[in-house]
């Protein structure tokens, strides 16, 4: 097929396996149907649809429910695989292999090559090594294929048995393509396996009668994977001395290891170029992973990286290899370190409207929202809606990071109406904001004068379980108390404030209680005052005393003004007495104003003047 010569870079998706087309048609009907279903922003995620009781409301619940669903499935699988004899009846016609128990136990006991292959297939590293040794001791020769498979196995797992719990899961992923283990980082991932000196891989490698490219490749890849970078390069030289050529995987591994074995940026780059030249000499065709490894290595080459990464992209184009998202991610990383943000625009124009298929473990939506560029954020979001690109966003943890940043950016940059539109769209079906996200929203409301939305937002805050975050509640209260609004809004604020108050009161028994702060109390009281809820406000004032908090002078002033409007000398007296009991410095002033403003009985007057004097004396 003659390629069109157009200025824009046309990527041809090369499908190596022809049968993928016929595979596709198996679910083409379902795909067409699925594309007609739009997301319902008011509904929870599909996986929670079965049981409304388990609809998550907070991110913690989301995590808990989705993980428990998954772990339930895994437990069932585990039981089936552990007790295959109880699950032999095959109901399905035609036969469905994935419903049948998998054989996890070793069946072949005798010492033979078949037993070795079985152990390799079941990924039992130690047992396989033992079997190999027994075979050698018995004097039987092992076929080169089997020994290479064994070497692959040992190098892949770094001469350790894979974690037992991990194993059924990992196999599920391959066969079903839907199980996922990376949701939470396990401790076992963090404990790095290191390449030990003279481990079984090296030992068996040395025992091999003839070492071919595949054996070297396995050894080098294993060494790179488990951090023996220098050793990997030594093995590579050894390999060249034996007049063997490396394969593309070996070079990929070596390129990714290159930054580890050199100190200076130029030296690193020289080594990489050297490797690439050797690749060319050995007629090894680079693949996408080669260039991604190259770009990833360039991230650690400092100032060299920028020019060279662009050259790399051009090289990819010349080779007809379409960059994956990981390539673009590396390029962005390189340029961002240097503070150049223009590159994002170019990358976005390049990727816009294309669908991506994951080809590299590093593939994933480049989280480029740290640029605080709302236009770019929209572009990324548009990209997310193209085809199956949403899958590239990764697991729910990464999704929450993405949506969190996006929402933060929206709150910062956009008009409140737009923010609320997105708020309805994203929350809570896709994203459960953290307290900081809600504060951003409150600030956005404040900036655009939409404080009347606060009671509604408060409901959401309660639903999302952020109502025990005292700083968030404080901020909400202070926003409500700060300005004067129309009576209706004040009324709704007062309802909201009373709700907050009830939370403070009932929370003491049940869960982590909110601690009354003076500002929170002051704010609630002034909201109640502004809504003409005198009785409740009065209750709040009394609460100050019981909670050992001191009201502010401004609050006393507000109280006095409110009492003045209703002309109630009795309350005024009481107010002054409360003020005196708090030893507020403004008490004399308050008393004086009450004396002037209200018609008081003689008795009250004397009390007031006493208060005036006594506090002055105490001062």
């Amino acid at each position, binding site marked *: 097929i003659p390629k069109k010569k157009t200025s824009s870079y046309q990527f041809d998706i*090369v499908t*190596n396996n022809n049968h993928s087309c016929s595979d596709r048609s*198996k*679910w083409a009907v*379902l*795909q067409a149907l*699925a594309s007609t*279903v739009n997301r319902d922003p008011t509904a929870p*995620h*599909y996986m929670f649809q079965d049981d409304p009781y388990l609809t998550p409301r907070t991110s913690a619940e989301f995590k808990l429910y989705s993980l428990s669903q998954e772990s339930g499935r895994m437990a069932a699988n585990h039981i089936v695989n552990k007790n295959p004899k109880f699950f032999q009846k095959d109901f399905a*016609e*035609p036969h*469905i*292999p994935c*419903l049948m128990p998998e054989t996890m136990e070793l069946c072949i006991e005798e010492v033979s090559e078949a037993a070795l292959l079985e152990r390799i297939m079941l990924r039992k590293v130690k047992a396989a090594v033992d079997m190999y040794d027994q075979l050698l001791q018995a004097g039987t020769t092992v076929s080169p294929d089997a020994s290479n*498979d064994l070497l*692959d196995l040992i190098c892949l797992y770094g001469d350790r048995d894979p974690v037992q719990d991990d194993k059924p899961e990992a196999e599920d*992923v*391959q066969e079903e*393509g*839907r199980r996922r283990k*990376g949701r939470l980082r396990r401790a076992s991932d963090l404990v790095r396996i290191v390449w030990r000196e003279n481990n079984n891989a090296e030992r068996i490698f040395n025992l091999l009668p003839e070492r071919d490219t595949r054996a070297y490749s*396995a050894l080098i890849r294993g060494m790179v994977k488990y951090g023996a970078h220098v050793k990997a390069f030594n093995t590579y030289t050894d390999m060249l001395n034996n007049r063997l050529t490396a394969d593309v995987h070996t070079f990929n591994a070596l390129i990714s290891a290159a930054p580890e074995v050199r100190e200076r940026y130029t030296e690193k780059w020289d080594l990489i170029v050297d490797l*690439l030249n050797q*690749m*060319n000499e050995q007629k090894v*065709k*680079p693949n996408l992973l080669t260039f991604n490894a190259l770009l990833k290595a360039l991230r650690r080459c400092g100032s060299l990286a920028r020019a*060279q990464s*662009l*050259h*790399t*992209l*051009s*090289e990819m184009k*010349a080779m007809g290899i379409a960059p994956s998202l990981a390539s673009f991610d590396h390029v962005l990383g390189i340029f961002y370190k240097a503070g150049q*943000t223009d590159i994002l*625009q*170019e990358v976005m124009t390049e990727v816009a409207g294309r669908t991506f298929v*994951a*080809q*590299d*473990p590093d*593939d*994933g939506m480049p989280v480029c929202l740290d*640029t*605080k*560029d709302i*236009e770019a954020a929209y572009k990324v979001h548009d990209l997310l809606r193209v085809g199956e690109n*949403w899958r590239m966003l*990764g*697991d*729910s943890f990464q*999704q929450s990071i993405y949506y969190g940043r996006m929402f933060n950016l929206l709150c*910062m*940059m956009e008009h409140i109406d737009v923010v609320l539109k997105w708020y309805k769209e994203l929350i809570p079906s896709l994203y459960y904001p953290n307290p900081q996200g809600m504060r951003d929203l409150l600030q956005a409301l404040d*900036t*655009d*004068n939409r404080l009347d939305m606060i009671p509604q937002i408060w409901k959401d805050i309660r639903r999302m379980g952020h109502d025990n975050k005292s700083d968030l509640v404080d901020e909400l209260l*202070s926003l409500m108390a700060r300005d004067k609004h129309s009576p209706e809004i004040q009324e709704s604020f007062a309802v909201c404030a009373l709700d907050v108050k009830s939370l403070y009161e009932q929370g003491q028994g049940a869960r982590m209680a909110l601690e009354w702060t003076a500002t929170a109390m002051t704010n609630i009281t002034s909201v109640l005052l502004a809504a003409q809820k005198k009785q409740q406000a009065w209750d709040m004032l009394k609460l100050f005393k019981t909670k050992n908090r001191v009201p502010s002078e401004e609050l006393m002033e507000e109280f006095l003004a409110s009492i003045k409007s209703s002309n109630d000398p009795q309350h005024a007296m009481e107010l002054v007495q409360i003020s005196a009991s708090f030893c507020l410095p403004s008490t004399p002033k308050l008393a004086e104003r009450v004396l002037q403003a209200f018609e008081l009985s003689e008795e009250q007057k004397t009390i007031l003047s006493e208060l005036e004097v006594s506090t002055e004396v105490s001062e």
Partner: protein
Amino acid sequence: MVGEKVIELQDYVKMVAEQSEQRVGVKMEGVTESVKIEEIPVKMDSEKMEEIQTKTALLPIPEVKLEDVKESEEMKEIMLASKTEEVKQKLEVTMAVVKEGETIVEIQVKTEEVVDVKKEGDKVVEEQMLEVNKEEQQTEAPPKDEIQPVKSGKESLLDLLGAMKVEVTNKRKFKALKVQRTSETAARPMPAAMESTTSMFQEATGMADVPAPAPSETLSPELVAAVSAAAATLPSQSQAESELLKKLRQHEAIGEAQKNGDVNNIGVIIADMKVGKKPNGRQNARPANQIRFDEDGRGYTHDRGITAELDGGLRRRRSLFSGKRLNIFTPSTEPEADTDIAVPTLWDMELANQVALSTNQMPRNGFEEMIQWTKEGRLWQYPINNEAGLEAEAQVPFHEHVFLEKHLEEGFPRQGPVRHFMELVVSGLAKNPYYTIQQKREHIAWFRDYFQQKEEVLKEAEVYLN
């Protein structure tokens, strides 16, 4: 003549001021302004102008003169003071631009302001507005003007408004300022809404679009009107207006000076204009179309000026792939046959595993879940096919299933009861949809074995005829 114009101007200013009171919401009661223009005889001559343009283009740009800025800032300070003290005050500002003792233009702006400021909190707002205002003034002389300062009134007005349009996005700026303010003093009352600034800009430009081609005397009334309209969009309107008018007059004065053949003075005027441009030089260093950091340190704004849009249109973004390449590999034209398709190694499986883990595999709706099940082989495939699960038989033609007599050719008697029985078996098998062809053959073979084993018995009974 001039008096008439002044009255007209006053009417206009009042009208715009009323609007601005409603829109901007800052308490300004009855802002009146009279602008006296004393002795600016300007006659525009298009031929002359061209001459000036060519001349000015050759002139080196003189040094910056700061006197002017200082004066205008002083004025602001006076105004502020008067507002906070709640007094009416008359302002008489005489601005003179002098160089080497030679007076070119003398403008006297007489401002009478009655401002009633109610809250002290508003002072802060006023200050910030002035700050914004300052930024607006920066746009008065876009870089173009440095090179071509001489333009007709209409042109310069359009320039001016065009330049102001650059900052139309300043709603963000207000927002940013507000954010800053709230974070600083959370307890203070909110300023009035300023949402409508953008629309007012549009209004002002709308007005500017229709000016009748008037003979330029001193300053055409349309021009003055448009200036005041533009100024009305700013919080401190009178000040902005006087600034704008002054700038216009400078343009005209250049023409006047040119006419007198006094070329040297152009330098002075240009110097003035440059001063007027950017008092604090904040935006100077920033190239167009770049993200820049706001002063409040919270967000970025993407500046989309007219020039930036132009730039974006003109220079098409260079592609990521247009640069040099490494020149290490030579792309081979013929696609290499992949040899390693045969058996995926453990490494390949591990890679596929990791790739699958890096993506989101959760189904979003029922259909996607059904796709998952189809991939796992748990579900019937769509479109529904009666022969699903019979893949092994897909290659077998139907006659193999139906015409089974050929299997009776060997090992069975040609005639007799056994043959008859087997014909019945074969016709039964031909109608059986459940057996594969292999099973059918095995079925027949079983009978063949059976009858051969029983051959003697059958021969005794004389039913095995061959």
